[in-house]
C-alpha cells in the first residue's frame, strides 16, 4: 500500500469531502494561499477558491462564532485553529454555543462543525504553543473528540467528522505531520467510538492516544524482548469512548497503564483509569496507572521539555514494575 504523511492524509480527506459536498468549507487564519504554517492545507485554495477556503483576521472567537452560525444554517465548516493552545480563546463559542445548541433547542438545531487543531510538546515552542488540551473539550457534553494516531486515522476520522452532524474537535499531533503511514487509495471512513487494538498481548494493557500510541508500541517492543506481552490499544476517539474494548482488555490482562499527552491531573488518563477501576476492579492485579504530561506549564529549554512527556522507556519501566508485582506509588 502507498504511504503518505499525516499532513497529506488530512489534506486528502478535506479535498474529498469538499468535492463530495458543496456546503463544506474551511475557515481560519492563513488557510488559503499560505496553507497554514504547517502547510497541511496547501493546494486546497487553488482547487476550491477563496469562497470555500476562507482566510480570516487573527480573531479566533470571531471566526469560531461565524462557523457556529454557518453550521446552524446549512453549511459544514471546518475551522482551522492554528494551535491547540488558542482553544482558550474560543471557549465560549465552542462550549457555550456549539456544544449546547442541539440540546438547548430540544434537538431542533444542529451544529455540524469540525474544529481542526493540534497538540503535542517537544517542538521547542514553549508554554503557549505546546499544550495538549483535549481533556478540556472532552469534559463538555455535546462535543465529540477525535485523536488520530497516524496518517490512516487522520484521514478516516476527518472524513467521518465532516459527515457528523455534531461539533467534532480533532486534535492532530503537530510533531506527526510528516510521519508516513500506509493509507489506502480507495475511500474509507473510520467510525467514531471504535478502538483499535494495535497489538495483542496478555500480560498488560497499554492504552495510548495520539502520538502516545507510538510510545506504547515502542514500549511494547522493549517489553517483548524481556518476555512481557503488552497489548496496545488506541481509542481513536475519546468522545465517544469505546469503553467495551478497553474493559475487555483490562479483564484479560489484569494490568493497565493509560498514556496520554494531556496534563496528568484531571485528564484523559484519570478518566479512563477510573472507568476501568469502577467496571473491572475484580479483574485487576494492580492499580491502573496514569501517565500524562507533567503538571507544569511546558518549559522551553529542551533539557526540561523532554522530561515532561511520557517516553517508551518510561512506560516500559512502569509496566515492568506492575508486572513484577510492585504496587506502584502505593503508600
Amino acid at each position: 500500500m502507498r504511504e503518505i504523511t499525516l499532513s497529506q492524509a488530512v489534506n486528502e480527506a478535506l479535498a474529498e469531502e469538499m468535492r463530495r459536498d458543496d456546503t463544506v468549507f474551511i475557515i481560519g487564519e492563513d488557510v488559503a494561499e499560505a496553507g497554514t504554517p504547517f502547510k497541511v492545507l496547501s493546494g486546497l485554495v487553488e482547487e476550491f477558491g477563496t469562497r470555500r477556503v476562507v482566510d480570516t483576521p487573527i480573531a479566533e472567537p470571531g471566526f469560531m462564532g461565524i462557523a457556529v452560525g454557518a453550521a446552524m444554517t446549512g453549511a459544514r465548516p471546518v475551522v482551522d485553529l492554528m494551535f491547540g493552545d488558542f482553544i482558550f480563546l474560543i471557549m465560549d463559542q465552542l462550549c457555550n454555543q456549539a456544544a449546547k445548541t442541539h440540546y438547548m433547542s430540544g434537538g431542533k438545531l444542529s451544529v455540524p462543525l469540525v474544529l481542526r487543531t493540534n497538540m503535542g510538546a517537544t517542538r521547542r515552542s514553549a508554554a503557549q504553543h505546546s499544550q495538549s488540551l483535549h481533556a478540556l473539550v472532552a469534559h463538555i457534553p455535546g462535543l465529540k473528540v477525535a485523536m488520530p494516531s497516524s496518517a490512516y486515522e487522520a484521514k478516516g476520522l476527518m472524513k467521518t467528522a465532516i459527515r457528523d452532524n455534531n461539533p467534532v474537535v480533532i486534535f492532530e499531533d503537530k510533531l506527526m505531520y510528516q510521519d508516513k503511514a500506509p493509507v489506502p487509495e480507495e475511500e474509507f471512513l473510520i467510525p467514531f467510538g471504535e478502538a483499535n487494538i494495535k497489538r495483542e498481548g496478555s500480560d498488560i494493557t497499554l492504552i495510548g492516544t495520539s502520538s502516545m500510541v507510538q510510545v506504547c508500541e515502542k514500549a511494547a517492543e522493549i517489553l517483548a524482548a524481556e518476555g512481557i506481552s503488552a497489548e496496545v490499544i488506541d481509542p481513536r476517539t475519546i468522545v465517544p469512548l469505546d469503553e467495551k474494548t478497553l474493559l475487555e482488555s483490562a479483564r484479560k490482562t489484569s494490568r493497565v497503564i493509560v498514556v496520554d499527552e494531556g496534563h496528568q491531573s484531571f485528564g484523559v488518563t484519570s478518566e479512563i483509569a477510573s472507568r476501568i477501576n469502577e467496571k473491572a476492579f475484580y479483574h485487576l492485579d494492580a492499580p491502573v496507572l496514569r501517565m500524562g504530561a507533567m503538571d507544569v506549564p511546558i518549559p522551553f529549554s529542551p533539557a526540561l521539555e523532554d522530561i515532561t512527556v511520557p517516553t517508551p522507556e518510561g512506560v516500559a519501566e512502569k509496566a515492568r514494575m506492575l508486572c513484577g508485582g510492585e504496587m506502584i506509588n502505593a503508600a
Partner: protein
Amino acid sequence: MAKTKTNSEDYLRMYRQMVRIRSFEDNANQLYLSAKMPGLTHMYSGEEAVAVGICEALKTTDKITSTHRGHGHCVAKGAEFKEMFCELLGKEEGYCRGKGGSMHIADQSNGNLGANAIVGGSMGIATGSAFTAKMLGKDDVTVCFFGDGATAQGLMYEVMNMAALWNLPVIYACENNGYSEYTKTEEIAAGSITARAEAFGIEAHQVDGQDVLAVNKLATDLVARARKGEGPFFVELMTYRYHGHHVGDINREYYRTKDEEKDWKENRDPIIRFRAHLVSEGLATEDELDALNAEIAKDAEDAVKYALDAKYPDVSEVDMHVFSDIKHALA
C-alpha cells in the same frame, strides 16, 4: 410618526404583534410573581416596536438571533403563545421540549436561531448565518439583536470586522434600553455606539425605538439593501425596558428613578403611540382595537392555562439531544 407601509392590514398586524408581546410578558411576569414559573425571566415590555418594526421587514426564511431578553423577538418572528409558555414552564410541548427555557427559546421553523444567555454570545452565530447565505447564494438576511451591554464584548468587533470585509447580509440591531443590567449605559460605553460600527466602514443609523413605523421604514430599506449585497448595517434603537433587568429586580431606585420609568411608560409607550396614530388616521376605531386587545388577552390566558396543565418531559429525555445521532448519550 414616520410612515412606510400603507396597507392598513400591515399596520394592524404590527399593532397586534406589539400587543401580543406585551400580553405575553404581562402573563410571564404573573407566572413569576405567583411562583408558578421555574427560574427567572427578562421582560421585553417597552421595547415592542423594536422587534416588531424589524421582524415585519423580514421573510420567514430570514434569520434572527435573540438575547436573554428575547420573548419579543420570538413572538415578532412568528412564534405561538402555547409553545412559548410551555417552554417557559419547562414542558414537553415547549419549542425546545423544556430544555432551553426562557433564555434559550429557539424557533427554527420561523428562522429564530435562538435566544442566547451569554451577553453578545450570538454575534458570531448571526454573522455566520449571513456567511452561509452568501456562500450558498441564498438571499436570506440575518438580524442580530443585542443590547447596549453587549457592545462592551470583544466578539462584536471581531465579527463586525469580518462582516464588513466580506459584505455579509447581516444587520446588527443594538437595542439601547439605557441600562446594562443594573448600570446606566453611559457608565459602560465610552464614545458613540454607532461610531463603533462606522469604524469598520459599516453604515450605521440611530432610530427612535418607540416608533414602530420609523423602525419598520428603516428596517425595510436596510433589509432590501442587505439582500442585494450592500450589507452589513448597524442600527441603534433607542428604547426602554419597563421592568428591571429580570423579573426579580423589583427595588431598582438605586440605579433609576420611578419618575423616569413613569415618563417612558406614559409619554413614549410604543403601543399607546401607535394606537393613537391608527385611530387618528382612521385605520381602526377604539372599539376595534379594544376588541383586538381582548382577543389577544384571551389567547394568552388560554395558552397559560394550557401550559400549566401540560406534561413535563419524561425523565428519560435528560440524556437525549446531547448528540444528534445518539438517542441516549448515557445509555
